[in-house]
């Protein structure tokens, strides 16, 4: 690579390279010093550096989450009311089925008479919960 190196470089090269080296080294030290001095500007650690973009994403998401939580709460209470209604209806259905069975048995009985059937129907009128 180096075919004919001159024994000594011109003086200006030595001066120029010295100046360049000192300037470069100085700028390196200055860079470190600047970052150390301005350390207060960088509050966040690398791990929790939230970017501006991320913050703008997070805020609407948070409001959305509170909205959804409210809606979920509403839905849950509504579900409770509905479950209660279903329970009541199930009870009514059971009672009605039982009444229907009793009437059917009374009608189909071999010795069924109008009077007996009427008596059975009158009896079921008194069953509680049927007035609804």
């Amino acid at each position, binding site marked *: *690579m180096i075919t004919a*190196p001159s024994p000594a470089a011109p003086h200006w090269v030595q001066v120029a*390279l010295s100046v360049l080296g000192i300037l470069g080294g100085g700028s*390196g030290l200055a*860079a470190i010093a*600047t970052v150390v001095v301005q350390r207060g*500007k960088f509050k*966040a650690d690398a791990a929790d550096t939230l*970017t501006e*973009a991320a913050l703008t994403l997070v805020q609407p998401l948070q409001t959305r989450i509170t909205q959804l939580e409210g809606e979920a709460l509403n839905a849950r209470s509504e579900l409770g009311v509905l479950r209660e209604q279903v329970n009541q209806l199930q009870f009514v259905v059971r009672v009605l089925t039982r009444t229907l069975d009793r009437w059917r048995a009374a009608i189909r009985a071999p010795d069924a008479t109008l009077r007996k059937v009427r008596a059975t129907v009158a009896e079921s009128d008194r069953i509680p919960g049927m007035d609804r």
Partner: protein
Amino acid sequence: MGQLRIRSRHQPYEVAVLIAAPICGTLMMILNVRPTSVQTSMPAPIQAAWELGLIAVGVGGLLGILWPGRLSTGLGLELASVLVLGTITSMYTVALLVMTGRNSIVATSFVLAVAVGSLWRAAQIVVDLRRLARACEFMTYDQLQAGVP
């Protein structure tokens, strides 16, 4: 509101050069050899500083890239290393140019490319640090904490 984009710090060319630099410096120191162009174009103390600089740059730069703590500290270390690396390679480029001229076009070009690349990377880091500082100014630490429940 702009986006904060910090460039990846694991850039293959940069890392390769930063690994090569301390190896090169250590070998020169152990074997007590120096390029003829460096020997003839630099005063003795500058030569020693140049050699030590190679080692310091490599170690500092890799340390900065792998820094586990604050991002800004790592970037600062990397910035300093890359600046000094740019200086060292520029010095070598000048030495090669003056001492060997057209005989070492290839070597000069590659060394100059490393110098330009280093200064380019330094400029990138400065921009990134600016953005980071702006982002930190934009949000107080409380906001950061409140942002992540």
